[in-house]
């Protein structure tokens, strides 16, 4: 464990990312205290530029942009984390079963995974949200459905190598039951790369959520950064602050998560240092 922290802290970027992310998470948690007024509520004259009565200005209905960003942090992070968790659940289950059991089970699951990777993911996500009608659940489901395949592949690869590891064979010989082997012997050893991947999935999910909301597919009852940019698009020329600040919030958050993810990668998988790539 000490090694872990040491390695993590060696990565200065990761440390910065962690600090930023912590701040963002704190903001998200305390948003109702920092900004007790409903972010949907008109407080002043519409389209006030930043620096006046409202630090980051007001939008077309006179709502406080800062309040929107503070409350938006909740929904962006929440959707990011929730989708990553759901995607990880699907992915790890599929990957674990495929990798551990092999044979025809593996064949079938690999085909399914490949199939899902063939579908153009963003259009698919749009489609899913539209079909399920925009809302928190549908967005989470849509993001999870398009992001699980890489996780499944990783989990499968890990489980495949681990299942032929000698300590797993030893457990088989000791008469340990199969579910127990998967849960106690294999999963804990596959968890590090999965954690790294999961953290990066959060970042991707936040980006996807912002793009969906930007296109008008967000949850209409929850303010999110992507929604703010999308809603301000008609006036972005003369009210730049409506697009720029929420955009910065997204960049900062995603950047911080990526940095932390890389730090985790360096710390958890020293042998995999620097390997990772994703698609937006």
């Amino acid at each position, binding site marked *: 464990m000490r090694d872990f922290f040491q390695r993590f802290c060696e990565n200065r970027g990761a440390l910065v990312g962690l600090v930023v992310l912590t701040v963002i998470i704190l903001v998200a948690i305390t948003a109702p205290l920092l900004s007790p007024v409903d972010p949907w509520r008109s407080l002043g004259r519409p389209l006030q530029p930043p620096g006046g009565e409202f630090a980051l200005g007001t939008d077309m209905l006179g709502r406080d942009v800062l309040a929107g960003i503070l409350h938006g942090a909740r929904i962006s992070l929440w959707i990011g984390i929730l989708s990553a968790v759901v995607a990880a659940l699907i992915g790890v289950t599929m990957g674990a079963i495929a990798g551990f059991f092999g044979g025809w089970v593996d064949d079938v699951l690999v085909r399914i995974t490949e199939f899902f990777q063939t579908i153009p993911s963003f259009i698919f996500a749009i489609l899913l949200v539209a079909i399920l009608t925009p809302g928190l659940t549908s967005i989470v489901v849509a993001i999870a459905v398009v992001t699980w395949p890489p996780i499944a592949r990783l989990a499968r690869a890990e489980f495949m190598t681990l299942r032929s590891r*000698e*300590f797993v*064979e*030893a*457990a*088989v010989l*000791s*008469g340990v039951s199969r579910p127990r082997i998967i849960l106690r012997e294999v999963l*804990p050893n596959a968890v590090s790369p999965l954690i790294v991947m999961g953290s990066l999935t959060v970042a991707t999910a936040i980006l996807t959520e912002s793009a969906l909301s930007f296109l008008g597919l967000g949850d209409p009852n929850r303010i999110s950064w992507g929604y703010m940019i999308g809603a301000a698009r008609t006036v972005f020329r003369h009210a730049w602050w409506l697009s720029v600040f929420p955009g910065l919030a997204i960049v900062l958050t995603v950047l911080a998560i990526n940095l932390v993810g890389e730090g985790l990668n360096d710390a958890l998988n020293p042998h995999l240092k620097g390997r990772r790539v994703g698609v937006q």
Partner: protein
Amino acid sequence: MGQDTTSTPLVSIEGLRISLPLGSDRVMAVDGIDLSVKPGKILCIVGESGSGKSMTAHAIMGLVPKPLKVEGAIHFDGHNLADIAPSVHRGIRGSRIGMVFQEPMAALNPVMKVGKQIEEVFRFHNIPGPYDDRIVALLDSMGLPEPELLRHAYPFRLSGGQRQRVMIAMALALDPALLIADEPTTALDVTTQKQILNLLKTAQHERQMSIMLITHDFGVVAEIGDEVAVMQEGRIVERGAVKDVLHDPQHPYTQTLLAAVPDLSPRPAADAEPAPLLSAANVSKTYRTRSGWFTPGREVHAVQNVSLQLGRGETVGVVGESGSGKSTFARIVVRLLTADEGDVRLDGVDANLLDLDTRQLAPLRKRVQMVFQDPFASLNPRRTVFEIVAQGLRAHGVGRREARRRVEELLDLVALDPSAADRYPNAFSGGQRQRIGIARALALEPDVIVADEPVSALDVSIQARVLDLFADIQKRLGIGLLFITHDLRVAAQICDRVIVMRKGEVVEAGTSAQVLFDPQHEYTRLLIDSIPGRGQMPKKHGPATAAAEAMERTRE
């Protein structure tokens, strides 16, 4: 420590120090060594893993990884290689000094044809072309077949021995004055090792060059070396002519290393026929690569018609080189793999083990346990030693407290402190881990233990200790031991009987003494002939294991 002072050394190393990065287990990888290589001689550097022998070689080549600092002097051709402009050093590498690495597969660029890789040596030392004839001649001189075709092949097409020959060809392309060979035969089978060593000897003789050969195996030293330096923890503890050191080692560490080399003294055959315990008859397994829609499948006969008998308290060795099917056979016996055909019977069970399904097998599993090759891969790094050793007991319904008591007993049996139970595997050395693995195998009080190369991943001094432990346990518990190994010396030392396998088939079977001293099959004879240093190693003297034991204690 007689030093020959008659000829000027080709390389002379003075006060070489290489520091390790902060946080390593010691400060210096190489801690002030003096060493010289004489022209036309072969110097062997012997040491166990982490002794700093490879680092020394890398320092000569200028290949020490960036953050590490090299201090001291390495004199060669009028240069101090420890402090030289990189461009000058580059000109020396490959032309005046060649190097061969341990793992020929990893050391060759997988996506470049071998001829091309050799050609680079010429091209980038400004040798005018054309190169084709030179490359063909070079490959031919390395004893490679059909060099004209072979130079157009990618490394993965070649066998391990061929790859190493290509590596050597590359290193020798420009007739260097010095060849550094870093464990050049460790990754190879014993018969191939013999060939490569011969090739090196011949090349050295023909080209009148010097070789610095790094090895952990005194057998190799005996086979090829003129002089030897023994390294331990970054220091040279003994140095001298090979025959002097072999027959009259001065330093206790050298003595330990020598003592740990298994000699060809077979274990005396058992007096009486032991009670039968496990018998395997006509076991066969064929691997088929799955045929795609449009590609035909291929077949590999991994195990063909292998039979053997194992009695109570008896040790039977299965010996073979890589690809002989010995490990596959071992896994079939413990039912980690299924066989295509065959009959495996266990005393007291009226059924062919190979025919039982998972549920029928469950109660029998505990009677046949296994010890694995890799002490690192065989212990789950995320579980404590207690959990690892007790997992079988727990799975068979033993309560936690009782399991704890048993685990402590078992740890005591394999000479580990009971406090080890609460630590994780990464707190232990390779030898200790292998003991934990043995304790785990013993936990269910099996009748049979199948040990798959249990010592081949260990340093020699530790090998001996673990082998003694096996012998000891077997004596005390009367277990039948099926011992899989590639090393005839090891097999002879601890096995009552031996079967020799090649390409899935048994070529010879008999008592250790019969197989070793009166081999019937020519392959067995080849194996025996290939044992490095055979006949040149001194007979063992003194209580080797005691010394080794002391050694291991200090390491841990």
